[in-house]
């Protein structure tokens, strides 16, 4: 599926849109980390929680639970929260 990567993470991916796979968001980030080592820990902490101020949208809907199921044609956007103006 297609993933939108925020500017702050493009030092890992080199581009704004990448492809990755997974039946859940957790699996998706595991696949992203295989392709771009280190990326997952900048977004998901060691207790498996999405870090504060990071947001994820699946087909435009905000999601925080990494157990969220995904389909191959979903569009996932990883976004830095708009915090502080």
């Amino acid at each position, binding site marked *: 599926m297609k993933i939108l990567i925020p500017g*702050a*993470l493009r030092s890992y991916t080199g581009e704004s849109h990448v492809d990755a796979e997974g039946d859940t968001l957790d699996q998706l980030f595991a696949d992203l980390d295989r392709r771009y*080592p*280190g990326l997952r*820990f*900048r*977004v*998901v*902490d*060691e*207790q498996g*929680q999405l*870090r504060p*101020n*990071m947001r994820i949208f699946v087909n435009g809907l905000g999601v925080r639970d990494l157990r969220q199921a995904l389909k191959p044609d979903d569009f996932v956007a990883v976004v*830095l*929260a708009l*915090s502080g103006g």
Partner: protein
Amino acid sequence: MSRTTATSPASIKKAAARLVVLVATRKGAWLFHSDGKRKAWTVDGPHFLGHTISHVMLDPRDGRTLLAAARTGHLGPTVFRSTNLGRSWKEAQQPPAFAAASNGLPGRSVDHTFWLTPGHASEPGSWYAGTSPQGLFRSIDAGVTWAPLPAVNDDPQFREWMGSAQDGTPDGPKLHSVIVDPRDPKHLYFGMSGGGVHESRDGGQSWATLIQGMEVVEGFDAATVTFHDPHCVRLCPANPDRLYQQNHCGIYRLDRTDRPSGDVWHRIGRKMPKRVGDIGFPMVVHPRDADTAWVFPMDGTDVWPRTSPAGQPAAYVTRNAGKTWQRLDQGLPDSQAWWTVKRQAMTVDAQAKPALYLGTTGGELWIGRDEGASWTNIARHLPEIYAVEVAELA
């Protein structure tokens, strides 16, 4: 102001610099190179512009490996490594991260790595890291991978002393001042804000508290470890049995004995001028004279403004282990200077006539020549400075 020129990292080598001052700030890292005269400085930076850099350290065992503790406002914490003095950086493969929940304790997440300490000279590649919230980590591969020390991080007693994130300092409770005894790689110290001073003699497998004599905020019980707030602890290279400490409640010296009952911190800050007080964050010790140490007091009255007392910044030095103190402010602003110096942002080099270095919350880098007798500005207009280290290059 000292002469400072900008250059690209590639041209640093041609400058044949011997000293490097490593400046970690809220918005990136800068390296200032000079020779033994310390008159002219060449600036290399910014590195990691926009990243919050808590600490940058050079490995004294090879004189060229740098570690930088980083995070950003949104992204999680990590550690970057350079084996060529910052010409290129690589991210750690496994940055400091807590283990899964255990012992019935809630799981924790590292907010940022705060403190980096190279391991013992006999253990190349070993490093220690202190984090916020309080955690202790060790690397044995020069910072590529980091492992938590469970005897601290997952011990119920330590967790009680650490308290929650809300019990800590405004930007998070911290484990800091990780010290390796130069005589024994298994003899370690660290401090926690809050949570006391602790030591291990078995490489971190077991720990003992070291708080006798330390005071706590009025009305609280000094026997309760969690109330103790050491800000910075330093071991004297010239006498590893002597430590100095800047604490939330004063300045202390500890001379180790061979019996626990004799290991008592003495509040040497009581000899500081009353109008200045003995509250502050950094503590600096002389590289060759265990009777000489420096502090940089701040205003710890009322609501804790954390500014220079009366807007008049000054270092203070003792040359007799704390019996008396002298003010060192020549060259520093004499009024309306409301910055201060954080706990990692003041240090000393090991040249024949040592110079002090400090970075301010207002983004200024200063050198205190002749052991702080005369201060000169090296750089202005940097972001808020979190840490300053100086090292001699290989």
